């Protein structure tokens, strides 16, 4: 199962943290705001209470205000703000008109020392009211004892709750915006944080396609150990491949040295008149040598086709191969006709193109009577290479078998057909096509189509 995306996980954790933090902040701010409103209302009511106390005329049997309270809401029934003066001795109650016929009641008795008690009580016309009460003693003219009166003011908390609700709505909007900004910032942070991974991905892709040998560039300190590990791994792999190739080459070298010595023995046998045995030994050594070469060449091709993808000029490679073939007894007497535009380039490693031209031109040299033609044409991002000879050619059944590994069409000439199989391998590995046919002169015609290179 695929692990969930790192980006998604980081974003989810951040979003959850932001949500929890903002929720706590929201609750705290909201509660602080409520407390603040309540405190400011309490302060307001304290001054109302002081005003009320100042207006009391304690000498009357029923406590009375010397003048009415200035706030008109006291005079409106259920006006939202109330006052009340009670005489705990005789139970007489004087109250604001706004109280109508209800009585403000505290659950706890008021302190004897005259300090103000603040309490939430049931309002006359609302669920809740903020109330302040104070027990006061008044000296009375000519009376033996002071008059004790309980003085209350109260205000419905509807207003506080409405302000609270409005504040919470605004707070919620503000917190939502903050949350969005924070999540956006987290997204940017995660993207920036993960960007070295993208760079590494591109670097590894460049290594895979042969455009780079190792991860280059500056990486953050946290990623550098990973980059070093990857580079070390690549170096180790390169060394292993090089080691294996060197061992294979050494093995081939050792075997071929022995095969050359065997050929020397064959030479001696022939000199002593045993030509049949000599020829048998030489055929065997030639066959063994081809098998060794084939495997060595294939391992090199596979390795290269995965790595350096380059562009090679066809004319240069063909010229060099023909120069080499002209040094052989067969190649020296042939008429070589070359028709390759100078700019024609194939998207192939120089070694692979040389090998490809080498095997096909060597085959043509082996069979041609007088002449070998090599031509190249570029069209639509492809290059078509054609090699023809004027040799005996092949019938269609033999043509179909040509280039298959180990297929040998004619046993009378040296070689086991492995060369053409290597040619086919190079073309296939590099996404090209290969076909064999009869040349106008009756010999073999080889057509190869490969992607054009950029060098031209």
């Amino acid at each position: 199962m695929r692990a969930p995306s790192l980006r998604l996980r980081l974003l989810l954790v951040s979003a959850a943290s932001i949500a929890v933090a903002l929720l706590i902040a929201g609750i705290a701010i909201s509660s602080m705001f409520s407390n603040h409103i309540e405190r400011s209302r309490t302060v307001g009511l304290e001054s109302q209470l002081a005003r009320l106390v100042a207006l009391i005329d304690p000498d009357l049997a029923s406590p009375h205000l010397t003048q009415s309270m200035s706030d008109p809401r006291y005079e409106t029934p259920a006006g939202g703000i109330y006052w009340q003066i009670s005489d705990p001795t005789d139970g007489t109650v004087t109250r604001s008109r706004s109280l109508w016929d209800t009585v403000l009641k505290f659950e706890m008795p008021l302190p004897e020392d005259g300090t103000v008690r603040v309490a939430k009580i049931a309002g006359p016309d609302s669920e809740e009211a903020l109330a302040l009460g104070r027990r006061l003693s008044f000296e009375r003219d000519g009376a033996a004892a002071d008059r004790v009166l309980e003085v209350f003011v109260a205000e419905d908390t509807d207003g506080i709750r409405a302000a609270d609700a409005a504040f919470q709505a605004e707070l919620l909007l503000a917190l939502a915006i903050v949350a969005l900004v924070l999540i956006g910032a987290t997204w940017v942070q995660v993207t920036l944080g993960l960007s070295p991974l993208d760079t590494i991905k591109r670097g590894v892709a460049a290594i895979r396609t042969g455009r780079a040998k190792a991860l280059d560039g500056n990486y953050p300190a946290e990623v550098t150990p990973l980059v070093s590990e990857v580079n070390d791994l690549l170096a180790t792999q390169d060394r292993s491949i090089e080691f294996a190739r060197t061992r294979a080459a050494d093995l081939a070298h050792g075997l071929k040295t022995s095969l050359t010595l065997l050929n020397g023995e064959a030479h001696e046998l022939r000199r002593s008149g045993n030509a049949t045995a000599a020829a048998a030994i030489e055929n065997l050594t030639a066959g063994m040598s081809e098998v060794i070469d084939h495997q060595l060449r294939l391992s090199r091709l596979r390795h290269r086709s995965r790595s350096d993808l380059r562009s090679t000029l066809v004319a240069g490679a063909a010229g060099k191969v023909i120069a080499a073939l002209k040094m052989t007894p067969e190649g020296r007497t042939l008429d070589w006709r070359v028709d390759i535009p100078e700019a024609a380039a194939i998207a192939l490693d120089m070694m692979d193109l040389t090998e490809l031209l080498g095997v096909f031109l060597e085959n043509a040299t082996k069979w041609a009577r007088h002449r070998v033609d090599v031509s190249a044409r570029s069209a639509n991002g492809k290059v078509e290479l054609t090699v023809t000879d004027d040799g005996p050619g092949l019938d269609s059944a033999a043509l179909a078998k040509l280039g298959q590994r180990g297929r040998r069409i004619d046993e009378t000439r040296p070689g086991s057909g492995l060369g053409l199989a290597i040619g086919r391998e190079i073309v296939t590995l590099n996404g090209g096509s290969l076909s064999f046919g009869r040349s106008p002169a009756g010999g073999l015609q080889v057509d190869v189509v490969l992607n054009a290179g950029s060098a031209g």
Partner: protein
Amino acid sequence: MLLLVIEDDPGIAATIRSALEQAGFLVERESNGENGWFRGDTETFDAIILDLGLPNLDGLTILKRWRKAGHTMPVMVLTARGNWDERVEGIDAGADDYMAKPFRVEELVARTRALLRRAAGHPSPVIEIGEISLDTRQMRVAKTGIPVALSPQEFRLVSYLMHQQGRFVGQPELTAHLYSQDFELDSNAIEVLVRRVRQKLGTEAIATRRGFGYSMGGPAE
């Protein structure tokens, strides 16, 4: 004809040497790159057979150094690898022919002869000067078409002079190309050899020019 074989494997070197000696060549051998390069650089050989995989100094580097120094002697390259890029690289470096191991000894000898002929400007395997003809493949010398029996040393002299296209060759050069280094040589050995060949091919076959040496096909004094 004096050849230098630079090959590190003693078995292969012995095989090549014996085959080339049977073919009438004088053969010197070096087994490491450094010595091989030095001898090719300081001595004159008619052709060099150079293995590419050598200790100390690899064959391609040796070949490039010789060519850079202006040495034009024909060089046949031997390699254990059969791939084309190395073959092309060898030719690029200045090789005149290329053979991949394992090669047939007869083919090596035939191609060495062809190399020497080409270097001397003789495209045909049979070189003719006047009545004398030299068949390099058969190692035969004939006068007016009739084969003449020559000793190996006499054959080398005739072969070397006929490859020189009439150039006069001095005694020291002839000594170097006809006798191996460790051969105890009488001071008049070349004169004796020339006299023997003249007895078999006729006095006019080898011309002498005082101070210059001997020639076949060159203007007589």
